[in-house]
């Protein structure tokens, strides 16, 4: 039962990761971040993401033209900084709309008062 729940939870979260990563990179206080900092920032906000998931995802989003990256030196180490591309900004805005719609629909579907009504 717990394994089944874990698998379902993973599946549910997987769909949100792109939105979370793009959303985090939109933050005005830190518009470009390197992988480790991005992962920590996401974890601080409750979205824990494995490094083996985050880095391939960042590459995929960059290949799709939603992110841009550059190697820069910081604290005597070369780090790869990611930022949203103009296309990424647009797609993120559309994804947020989509997310709000889904969230509202799900909210109506799984709302407690609906279940009580059905009973």
């Amino acid at each position: 039962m717990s394994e089944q729940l874990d698998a379902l939870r993973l599946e549910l979260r997987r769909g949100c990761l792109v939105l979370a990563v793009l959303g985090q990179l939109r933050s005005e206080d830190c518009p470009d971040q390197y992988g480790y900092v991005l992962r920590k920032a996401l974890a601080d906000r409750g979205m824990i993401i494995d490094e083996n998931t985050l880095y391939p995802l960042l590459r995929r989003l960059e290949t799709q033209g939603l992110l841009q990256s550059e190697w820069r030196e910081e604290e005597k180490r070369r780090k790869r900084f990611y930022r949203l591309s103009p296309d990424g900004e647009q797609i993120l805005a559309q994804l947020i709309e989509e997310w709000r719609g889904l969230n509202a629909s799900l909210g109506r579907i799984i709302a407690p008062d609906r279940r009580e009504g059905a009973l």
Partner: protein
Amino acid sequence: MKQIDRYLRAIKFFLPKPQQNDILAEISEDIHSQLDDLEAERGRKLNDAEIAAVLKKRGSPNLVAGAYLPQKYLIGPAWYPLYCWVLTLVILLVQVPLFVTVIGPMNVLNSTAILPALFQTLGEFLQAALVAFAWITGIFALMERPDLFTFRRGKRDEPRTSITDLVNALSWIPLWIYLVRWIPRFNFGGVHLVLAPIWQTLFWPVLALAIAAAALRVFSFLSPTHAKFHRLARLAVDGFALLAIGLLFTTSNWVHVAAPNLTAATEQAASRWGNLTAAVFLMTVVVMIALATIRDWRGLPKNIQNRGKLPPDLRQGTIVE
């Protein structure tokens, strides 16, 4: 830090060459950032065991590298059901009956003791099944590579002619050559199968029909239009195929077992087995062709109605030129 270098070298082995250095630099940076954080948190340098624990938590090198690679299957979900079907067809519905009805009895008849003959048959069957498995798996693994099929128009999973039809049509050519030209050459431990002359008489016409049927299926597979033409041509080919089988049924002695080492009675018994197998095979073929003919005949009015139109699955933007 040697551990980290070893870990990164192991990951490098699994990565595609053009991206190796870029990916490794990023992973390396992430590991060092993580170690820096842990050291700051604990107020001291990490020892080897702690570094090893950090690396272990990240996962094995092949797992880490695998996350960067495109997901690949030897035989993916699109082909897997057909792969299972072909394996079942070849091994359970062709090889098992062949070994049970022909090769097994031959080995038993040709042997003085039953048990060794049965073991020999089992060994030969396992060998044949393994070869069939390897070939079928190899062919499907090749089909899994989409770059080999870029010439196709339309979606792979929405073909005008199904893959099943295509494989079925193509399989008749080697099967016919195997039956008529190869089986008589086999020597099953001093036992020969001699086919009646009618098989040789019909060899080239039937081979031509099989090639025509396969060519039609390939053409229909590649070009989803001209459905009416395909159906009419297939009906003609099926008609000729039924005619050829009708000619084969002018005799009931399709096969004779020649075994100089055996008694005449044993030879006769083996021949009866062979003819029974041939009769079952021919009747199965008749049923298959008849079903295909009925299907094509029933679909013909629809093709006439939709003449010149693309099939529904290819009408809206799915054609890749």
